[in-house]
């Protein structure tokens, strides 16, 4: 390794840092600044310093919306991880060819637009195509109706969305795990379910908790699934923020709500980081 810092690396490093600072950090700081401005019905905002926008957050409406967002994100995160962890374990034991198949499938789903996944599920749950029609055809449902919009449909959408991401995050650690303890347990005649609870779950406890927290933050920010598959009473904070900012053109209020969300996110991320650090240290 070359450790003779010259102007070249410094210049490149400074430029890269500058780009990140200008287009990533400054917008966030500016958003915090705007959250203290006065809303202006005629334009964007009036420069000011008021706490009014944050005051509104504590009104019953936003309070309910936030609690609901926290609930659906937490539920979604737990469901996603509970479904994805066994999958990753099984896939990691497959042959190389099938592992590649799963990675491509998961990568495709991770990259695919929320809009398209939402649309696909919308069709799958509609009465003219998809599950209701299938049930009618099988004879299980006489009078099929559309399954969306509903809370359940929205949760399915959220779980579908998060599934590939969680699987890909967990994959490296699971694939590279030390298999000797499991193998020993199996040789000694431990039933597979027992191996799962006594060996695998404790081994991956930290990564599972940390990925659940990551997913929680991620689902908090999902926009398309709630609008497409959920009823207005299921709408999450993200939808409300976008609605305030674009629909009502009340940017300071939208910014204040986003700052509250930012604070929650940062707290969760720090908690997650501390947890992982304590474990590895």
């Amino acid at each position, binding site marked *: *390794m070359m450790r003779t*810092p010259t102007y*070249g*690396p410094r210049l*490149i*490093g400074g430029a*890269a*840092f500058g*780009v*990140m600072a200008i*287009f*990533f*950090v*400054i*917008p966030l700081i*500016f*958003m915090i600044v705007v959250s203290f401005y006065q809303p202006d019905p005629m334009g964007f905002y009036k420069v000011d310093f008021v706490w009014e926008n944050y005051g509104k957050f504590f009104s019953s409406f936003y309070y309910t919306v936030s609690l609901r967002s926290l609930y659906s994100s937490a539920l979604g995160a737990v469901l996603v991880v509970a479904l994805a962890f066994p*999958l990753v374990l*099984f896939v*990691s*034991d497959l042959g*190389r060819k099938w592992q*590649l198949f799963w*990675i*491509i*499938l998961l990568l495709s789903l991770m*990259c*695919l*637009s*929320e809009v*398209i*996944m939402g*649309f*696909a*599920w919308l*069709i*799958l749950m509609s009465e*003219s*195509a*998809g599950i209701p029609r299938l049930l009618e055809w099988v004879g299980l449902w006489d009078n099929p109706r559309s399954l969306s919009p509903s809370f359940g449909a929205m949760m399915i959408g959220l779980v*579908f969305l998060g*599934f*590939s991401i969680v699987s890909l995050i967990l*994959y*490296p*650690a699971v*694939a*590279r795990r030390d298999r000797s303890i499991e193998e020993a347990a199996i040789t000694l005649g431990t039933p597979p379910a027992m191996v799962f609870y006594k060996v695998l779950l404790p081994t991956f406890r930290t990564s599972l908790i940390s990925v659940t927290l*990551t997913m929680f933050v991620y689902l*908090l*920010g999902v926009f*398309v699934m709630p*609008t497409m598959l959920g009823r207005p009473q299921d709408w999450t904070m993200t939808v409300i*923020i*976008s609605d305030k*900012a674009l629909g009502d053109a009340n*940017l300071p209020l939208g*910014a204040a709500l986003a700052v509250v*969300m930012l604070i929650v*996110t940062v707290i969760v991320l720090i908690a997650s980081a501390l947890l992982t650090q304590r474990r590895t240290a």
Partner: protein
Amino acid sequence: MRRVYLIVIAALMIAPFVVVLGVSFGASRNISFPPDALSAVWYTELLTEPDWLAAIGRSLLIAAIAGVIATTLALAINYVLWRTGSGFAKATFALGLGPFLLPPIILALGASLFWAEVGWYGRMEATIISHGVFFVTLPLVIIARGFAALTDEVIEAAQMIGATPAQVFRTVIFPLIAPYVCTGFALVAIISVNEYLIANMISGFVVETLPIKIFNNVRYGYSPVVASASMLFVALTVTILLILSRITDLVALFGTSKDT
């Protein structure tokens, strides 16, 4: 047991797209599955209607340039970190992980306010730059793996015969990490093509990308063209990933092999 679980999950992951595929080849204007008669009329409409073509073109343009911006940034940050190992370089790397960790709505609103203040609100350049900067995380992490795999011997050999740092980079480092750079670029391009929220909040009312157009269509009464547009996306995404799996070892990249 294991096999049943794998098959059920795979089926659930693929099922929505099978239905969309069926709808996109249906002949009637009403969405139904299975389709009553097969027809490619919605694909013809998608590929001849100027509105849809413009949206496709815009999305591809944004994705290509955003991909270049993100990979260049990621390459620069990784190179400096590798050369100097300084605290500043580490901090820049950590900063690059940030956008992935924050909910997109926060990035989107911040960027939208920022571009409005700069006066670029509603311009395509704004969407391109924001996509490029916000999606830096994946190439950053992937290219870091490339640098980690570099061995000191080749670099030292190059220096020994008198290569300047720039020459070392061009002739030794870059060829070795090129697969990682390609992977990073492809992933950013795919994510950018598919991204809705940030593009919509920065300039969605002027620069209508494909996801924005699909979303608006779904919200305000839709025709099966949306299904064919969606399938185009799915095909594009899967094709790029398949090509990628030929160029780089995706299984190793995601950490399976014991040696990495």
